[in-house]
């Protein structure tokens, strides 16, 4: 089954864009965005939109729009994101200049010297966003143990015996996406599934609640 051209086939991630009203009376703020391969200009005939709304019950003037973006464009993790804000109210309508940013992925690594975990996930947010993303990490030597490839399933599979067959030390590698030069905060989701000893479990390794921060 194919989707119409406005739907991303494959996994996506959330990226927030913040807006602060420069003056009272603004009624509408909308982000228009489009992505494409590196080196190509934006094609605004294919643009997507997201209305910027106040976060939670917070008052204006702060608004947030959440963009849903592909993790891969033409098979590449690096691509260009172009966006501008359309603003209406206060007696006029205007569009801000276009901002072009490079989306990219970074590898993150979890070491499991005790070979305790069968599956490792990575939860991550871009910038100051509260909207989390999730990707599966793959165990070195067992590439099908996790994937953030274009299938996008992002589900755990019962692979206890396969994991145990991998020689230690166990190293899991996943990817996080964000905007080049901007921070990403991530935590690890550690899962033990399918243990014949009945000691399955999961926990979050979150650096004491702070998460780990890296720059894309």
């Amino acid at each position, binding site marked *: 089954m*194919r989707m119409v051209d406005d739907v991303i086939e494959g996994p996506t991630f959330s990226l927030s864009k913040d807006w602060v009203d420069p003056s009272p009376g603004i009624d509408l703020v909308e982000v228009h965005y489009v992505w494409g391969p590196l080196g190509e200009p934006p094609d605004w005939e294919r643009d997507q*939109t997201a209305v910027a709304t106040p976060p939670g019950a917070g008052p204006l003037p702060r608004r947030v729009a959440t963009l849903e973006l592909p993790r891969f464009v033409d098979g590449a993790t690096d691509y260009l994101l172009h966006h501008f804000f359309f603003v209406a109210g206060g007696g006029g309508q205007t569009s801000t200049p276009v901002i072009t940013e490079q989306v990219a992925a970074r590898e993150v690594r979890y070491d499991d010297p005790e070979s305790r975990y069968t599956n490792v996930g990575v939860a991550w947010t871009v910038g100051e966003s509260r909207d989390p993303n999730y990707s599966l990490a793959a165990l070195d030597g067992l590439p099908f143990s996790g994937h953030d490839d274009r299938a996008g399933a992002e589900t755990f599979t019962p692979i206890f015996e396969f994991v145990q067959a991998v020689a230690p030390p166990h190293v899991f590698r996943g990817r996080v996406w964000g905007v080049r030069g901007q921070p990403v905060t991530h935590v690890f989701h550690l899962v033990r599934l399918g243990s014949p000893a009945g000691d399955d479990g999961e926990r979050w390794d979150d650096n004491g609640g702070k998460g780990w921060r890296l720059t894309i």
Partner: protein
Amino acid sequence: MTWYLRREWVDQEDGIENVMLHYTWSPPGGWPDWERNHNARMLVDAGGSPRRRWKVIRMPRGVYDEQGGLSLEYRLHFFFEVWQDGRNWHTDLESQDIVYRDMEYVDNEGWVTHLCAYWSVYDWQAPVYSPMEDPRFPSDSEFTSERYYAYQDKGRFSWGKSQMLGQLPLPHYWRSRIWAPRGAPVLQQFHIGHLYPPEETFETWLGPDGPSGPGGNHWVLHL
């Protein structure tokens, strides 16, 4: 233009650490094919007691069936994966028919120069502006409604749009399309603009009780 749908989860028990939303689409009457299209998104933890979690997902304007034909209506299939007390479990699969309605605003006087359907499913937390157009308006014009936003010289655009609309016999039939799960409430207003000439500039959000602000008085539709 895409549209958005908010999915929400409310914790019914203690010990829930994380909830994922899994979803896909199929042609009408179809079953999910998770091997071919599987989206998985981690919900936003909004806190509260009971704890609420949500995600806004992008939705397509249609799907292609196995014969390659475009279907403007389709099915959304989804379930939640819950991590609780060190184990994970899944809710039952749910499927919703996604249906559309063609919206129309009739402008008898030719006063309107810009018009959008402003709408959102369930509540105003996933709103969409859908530009409207008279189907007689030439789609290759630089002044189509969808081209307005990226057009830097808004004054020139409004002048050009007004001139071209003036060539169309009255009334003007502004049209657009909206989607929603069958039976779900859709909140809707018209964002109406009269942006030419500049000294007459006026815009408002129109509901059944007249002009208001965005999210003010609105229609509630069920598709």
